[in-house]
């Protein structure tokens, strides 16, 4: 078994993180964790509660400041200290429970932080929004992703968990140029809605995105992901190709029943 750099020597990984740590006072939430995301793959991040999964992705996306660590994007070291840095680099993130604002419309949610203003003096001087353009782009996007939401001017809270998640995921296609990071995209969803959301996740590949996904669902790891990394108590304990593991092995790695090192 060689490192991921070996089989793709020609092309650097889309995203590479080295030695990412996060300390809260004396508590080490994340201890020197590294990560490699290859072009077009879905990488699962699994681990028990408190393993550091959310801390890892928050550090990757600038939502929290990391204590140590280096992030390389397409082989180039990239400073990611704020959510805006991550977005500028082409990383789009869907946070669990923090994906949409209930009180504003679907249109405004999708474009929140990246609103399109009119291409005239009203837009330039006063930031007057171009609703026509934003609506058209959303309809185009939803058509492409087969998301059936007609009422894009209604407040987000009027929609089901599955619809909301679909909207949140669609933002990664609209804005994520390279990488989509998803924090438990099916956490609040029923069985049927979960499947729809995961099919959407799989289709992100077709739109040129590489995906990092936190999940607790081993079936989703085995069915939808290419590789899986296991965190335990803030440490990286294993990275495997999904084709080479089964559910029991994964659960063993997560709980610590199986102590294994090594990389897939």
């Amino acid at each position, binding site marked *: 078994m060689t490192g991921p750099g070996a089989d793709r020597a020609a092309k650097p990984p889309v995203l590479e993180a080295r030695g990412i740590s996060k300390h809260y006072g004396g508590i080490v939430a994340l201890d020197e964790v590294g990560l490699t995301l290859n072009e077009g793959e879905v990488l699962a991040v699994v681990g028990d509660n408190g393993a550091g999964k959310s801390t890892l992705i928050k550090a990757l996306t600038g*939502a929290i400041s990391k204590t140590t660590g280096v992030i390389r994007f397409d082989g180039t070291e990239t400073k990611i200290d704020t*959510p*805006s840095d991550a*977005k500028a680099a082409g990383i789009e*993130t869907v*946070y669990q429970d*923090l*994906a*949409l*604002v*209930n*009180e*504003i*419309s679907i*249109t*405004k949610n999708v474009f*929140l*932080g*990246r*609103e399109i*203003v009119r291409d005239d003096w009203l837009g330039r001087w*006063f*930031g*007057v*929004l171009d*609703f*026509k353009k934003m*609506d058209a782009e959303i309809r185009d996007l939803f058509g492409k992703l087969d998301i059936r939401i*007609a*009422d*894009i*001017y*209604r*407040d987000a*809270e009027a929609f089901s968990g599955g619809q909301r998640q679909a909207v949140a995921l669609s933002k990664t296609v609209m804005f994520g140029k390279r990488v989509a990071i998803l924090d438990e995209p099916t956490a609040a969803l029923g069985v049927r809605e979960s499947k729809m959301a995961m099919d959407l996740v799989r289709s992100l590949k077709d739109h040129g995105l590489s995906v990092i996904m936190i999940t607790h669902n081993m079936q989703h790891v085995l069915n939808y992901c290419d590789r899986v990394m296991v965190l335990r108590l803030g440490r990286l304990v294993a990275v495997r190709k999904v084709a080479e593991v089964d559910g029991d092995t994964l659960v063993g790695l997560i709980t610590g029943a199986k102590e294994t090192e090594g990389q897939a």
Partner: protein
Amino acid sequence: MSSADSQTGISNPGTSAGGLELARHNFMQIWQVLAALALIYGFFFLMSPPFRSIDTLLSIFGQASILAILACGTTIVLISGGLDLSVGSIFAVVGVSVGIFMAEWGLPPVAAVGLGLVIGAALGALNGTIQVLTKVPAFIVTLGGLTAYKGLAEILASGRDLSRFPDGFKFLGSGNTVPMLIMFAAAILTGLFLTKTRLGSRAFAIGGNEEVARLSGVPVAKSRIYYYMLGGLLAGLAAIVEVAKLNFAMPARGQSYELYAIAAVVIGGTSLFGGRGGVGKTLLGMFIMQTIIVGLSYLGVGTSYQRIAIGAIIIVAVYWDVWRRTAR
């Protein structure tokens, strides 16, 4: 009402079905407030014959207008999940300053008004900046502002006779009509700001869920400073209209205006918890409050009892807001 009534009142170039749906949705949001206004007006109309005159109606609008201008700013700040208790004192500082500019410095009205607005905006921005930098709750920061700015107004005014202003300036406060027109202009501009512009529409997102807004790349702190700045600007405008109307300036003016403004905003249906509301609602809330105040005076109820009535209405309005949020 105008599209300024709610955050969903965006221009809707989609299907006409969507437009109708939206109009229905907007109407549902304000019909209760409209019905309350009609009921209250009807009650006084029946109870008091002198209340029925057109002059009374105009004086309700006229008296509401100065507070309503200030309340436009309060609407922006509350929608963004903020709170500014100091606008009544900003009102006093701007009123006194404008008085000094004209009565002592002999500045032309245009310059005095312009400078007054700048001072209002600057004091509002100062509140916002302190709050954003220190992360001390808005309630405390602006409570400090309330006292401090009040002191500033008293220092500026002490020993000065600030009255007898030029006619060109007094025009801004003449009759019920001019203040009313200024009020509608301020309300329309505020409504356009909230519903049509990037900065304004972000107020709803920040008030709804600040963390989501931040993670979405919205510069939350900077935006908040702008909202407080606009709140101060509109408080300044209200002060200018009042000084023009009274033809004198004194630091005691503006006392408790922030509370009346918050009351009107909440009575109108803008959430005290941020994320929802609109300036059309604020005007309705202000008319409700003024109708009650004027109506009660016509029935011979004294000022002290009026205050008790307004206090009770504020609690009912907030209870209603809480109830709506939990019932969803």
